[in-house]
């Protein structure tokens, strides 16, 4: 009898099934992400409806044979708008992660490898960024940058810098102190060569895992800012904006807010699942 058994209910029998469910969960997550990516790349292959110009005769129809997920107040097909909206959300999330990853890596690698007062200044800067709630920081940036899809994406990306920088800094510091890096320096390796050949490859998986989770988080943030009306202006199909517009009809037309929300949740869950699977592989 192990210590765990004395207190917690027995787990061992559930373990094999748990593994299967994790793997099938990952497969499902990859399928969801692939579908959303295809929506973003080739929206017209998935729907024949126009996402911007509606059919006035079809306005506010409940989900049915003609409009699978219903239609909005201008007679636009909800599914078509969701499909075309994927491009907005995915582009935004890619830009946000790119901003966070590139500036975060720059700061993290610099702090971790140079050390000294530069490291201290960067670490304090990270503290400052972390002490401002992410949403408020993006709001402050949006006031300065203005409204729009790219502006919102950049604003969300800036809030991700601190997390990436701290993670990469920790990775670089850990690896730098390990024996084989000492050996690489000792055998005459130059600073950037050692960084490139030995330090970075070791940090890649954990950074990728974090990037996947940040990707899902960025989609969530972008939809929130879109909902608040700071993103692309109407009639652009954007998931958060669709929910904001559907709010005016929420007493009668539940499908206008329900389905965009479900799509956001599915995408974010899928990105998180991939991130967690990568993290688990690390351990």
């Amino acid at each position: 009898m192990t210590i765990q058994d004395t207190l917690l209910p027995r787990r061992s029998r559930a373990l094999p099934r748990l593994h299967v469910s994790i793997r099938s969960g990952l497969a499902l997550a990859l399928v969801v992400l692939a579908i959303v990516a295809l929506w973003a790349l080739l929206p017209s292959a998935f729907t024949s409806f126009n996402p911007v110009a509606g059919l006035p005769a079809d306005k506010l129809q409940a989900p049915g044979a003609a409009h699978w997920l219903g239609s909005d107040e201008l007679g636009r097909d909800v599914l078509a708008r969701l499909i075309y909206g994927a491009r907005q959300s995915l582009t935004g999330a890619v830009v946000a992660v790119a901003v966070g990853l590139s500036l975060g890596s720059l700061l993290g690698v610099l702090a971790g490898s140079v050390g000294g007062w530069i490291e201290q200044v960067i670490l304090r800067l990270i503290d400052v960024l972390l002490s401002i709630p992410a949403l408020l920081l993006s709001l402050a940036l949006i006031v300065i940058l203005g409204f729009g899809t790219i502006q919102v994406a950049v604003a969300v990306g800036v809030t991700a810098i601190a997390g990436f920088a701290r993670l990469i800094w920790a990775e670089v510091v850990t690896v730098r102190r390990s024996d084989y890096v000492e050996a690489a320096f000792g055998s005459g390796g130059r600073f950037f060569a050692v960084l490139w050949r030995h330090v970075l490859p070791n940090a890649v998986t954990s950074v990728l895992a974090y990037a996947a989770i940040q990707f899902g988080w960025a989609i969530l943030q972008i939809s929130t800012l879109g909902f608040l009306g700071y993103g692309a202006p109407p009639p652009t199909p954007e998931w958060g904006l669709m929910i904001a517009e559907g709010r005016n009809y929420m007493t009668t037309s539940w499908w206008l807010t329900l389905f965009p929300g479900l799509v956001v949740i599915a995408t974010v869950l899928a990105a998180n699942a991939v991130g967690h699977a990568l993290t688990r592989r690390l351990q």
Partner: protein
Amino acid sequence: MTHLISRLAQGALVLLATFTISFILVQMMPGDAVLIRFLNPEMGMTPEDIARIRVFYGSDAPIPVQYIQSLLAVLSGDFGYSVQSGVPVAQEIATNLPPTLLLASLGLLTALGLAFVLAWSAVLGPWPSLRRWIGSIPALMVSVPVFWVGITLIQLVSFKLGWVSMIAPGPWEKLVLPVLTLALPIAAPIAQILIRNIEDVSTRAFVPVARAKGLSRAAVLWRHVLRNAALPTLAIAGVLLGELIAGAVVTETVFGLNGLGRLAERSVRTQDIAVLQAIVLISAAGFVAISFLVDLVSLAIDPRLRSNRSLAA
């Protein structure tokens, strides 16, 4: 003691840096708030009028002078004037803070209760499959947009079930759905940490000792494990504050409640920078204060931190 003083100094430095960065960002803006508001042709202002207004708001002085001036003003609690309403920012904040504090504290309490129930049933629930399901709820909860939760709750609880009236509700009835909306995203990270810690602490050596002394399983969990597992939750108090503030922005907007979050949302829409700057600075100050308090509380609770200086540093 030296540790606490250095932590205080560090906190002050973080706040000064936050102020400096926000000041630099505001300076980088094309045109200032005064121009944005008063250059509107409908206002019918002459360039001389605008120049006088700029002098009044202090946006004509050289930049280092403006920096010192506004730093001193902020330190004395003067955040300037809201260009949108013409009211001092401090006054705007003072009127909008109480409803948000009420909403946030009720939300936090609900979230703690919810997280506790989730963690308890994820660890002690009857069947393994049920425990697994409950254990995965927090991960689901962090993936759901808060504004969507609010809207869906209104549709379900208010329109479909008719439990809470949206038209002319009572003062407490009005808060039920917003509090619930705010609590869900806060409860998720707390529950995740509780579950992980309960499982972690359960493997420690003192647990079988307590069992061997004849305590029941529930008593060990309640008195020994939970107490040890709840402490690390303090470490994410600062993160929770951020979640509460972000949640307040969204929740107050969805439910049309007055408060700091709604004020932040409005100040972005109207480019009322002074107001937004004040809200950012106040939240950063709240974050620093909470981190410091968490340090103090951990020192008070955990004797290991006091006896071992290297651990505390």
